[in-house]
């Protein structure tokens, strides 16, 4: 998994690409969120546009990140889901948990 960080105003956008899977990307996204919170940034968007696969460990870690950010008074949102990642969020019913956006400006304005 690769990542790219952009700070726009008080929102941190974490662009992710590749696989978010056990033994690799799942641990990394936790670290990226911990780093954001350490930088006092609790408005976070995961841009999943480049993500090819998320296994149950990756999904579980995203949920853990969501609750961690919420405990810090913030919100983790998702952007640019591929159809297959969207399918996974639908079947796991996590689409009801995460705020999901196709448009970056809309995502930024939602906080």
């Amino acid at each position, binding site marked *: 998994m690769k990542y790219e960080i952009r700070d726009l105003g008080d929102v941190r956008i974490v662009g992710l690409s590749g696989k978010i899977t056990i*033994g*690799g990307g799942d641990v990394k996204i936790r670290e990226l969120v911990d780093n954001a919170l350490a930088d006092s940034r609790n408005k976070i968007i995961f841009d999943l546009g480049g993500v090819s*696969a998320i*296994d*149950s460990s990756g999904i579980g870690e995203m*949920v853990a990140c969501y609750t961690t950010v919420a405990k810090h008074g913030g919100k983790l949102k998702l952007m640019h889901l591929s159809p297959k990642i969207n399918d996974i969020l639908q*079947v796991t*019913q996590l689409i009801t948990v995460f705020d999901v956006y196709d448009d970056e400006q809309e995502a930024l304005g939602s906080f």
Partner: protein
Amino acid sequence: MNNNNNKLNADLYLASRFENIEVAERALLDLCQAAGCTGDDEYWLVTALREALANAIRHGNRQDPGRWVRVAYTIDNCSVTIRVEDDGDGFDPEEIPDPTAPENLLRASGRGIFYMRQFMDRVEFSSTPGGGTAVVMVRDLAPTTRSSEHEV
């Protein structure tokens, strides 16, 4: 890889390391390509395979690289069958709570078997003679990806 009676078969023996999931994925993708099985079928097959292997390595074999995970693939014109066995102590899949229940939605774990059941048509667990877990998963191929017209 073997080709018997229009079936493609492959067997793998993997040490219990997460990086070996990539090896098994590569082997399945190669087999799928040889069978002409691509697209959505290929994607969801790999997704289910990764979950079965992650369970076998983490929960079954406790990430002990001295314990083996056995993987068997069979592809015919109509379906793909994946069998994954570990050397663990076994478990009861019925004890896994429904991860889509409202009270479980925010749990960080417990979705692996759910993934497998969502993306395969049939999933059956049993015990191996040594007391480990064997899971057999079957996905019926979409008509557009069946390979009746080509040599396998």
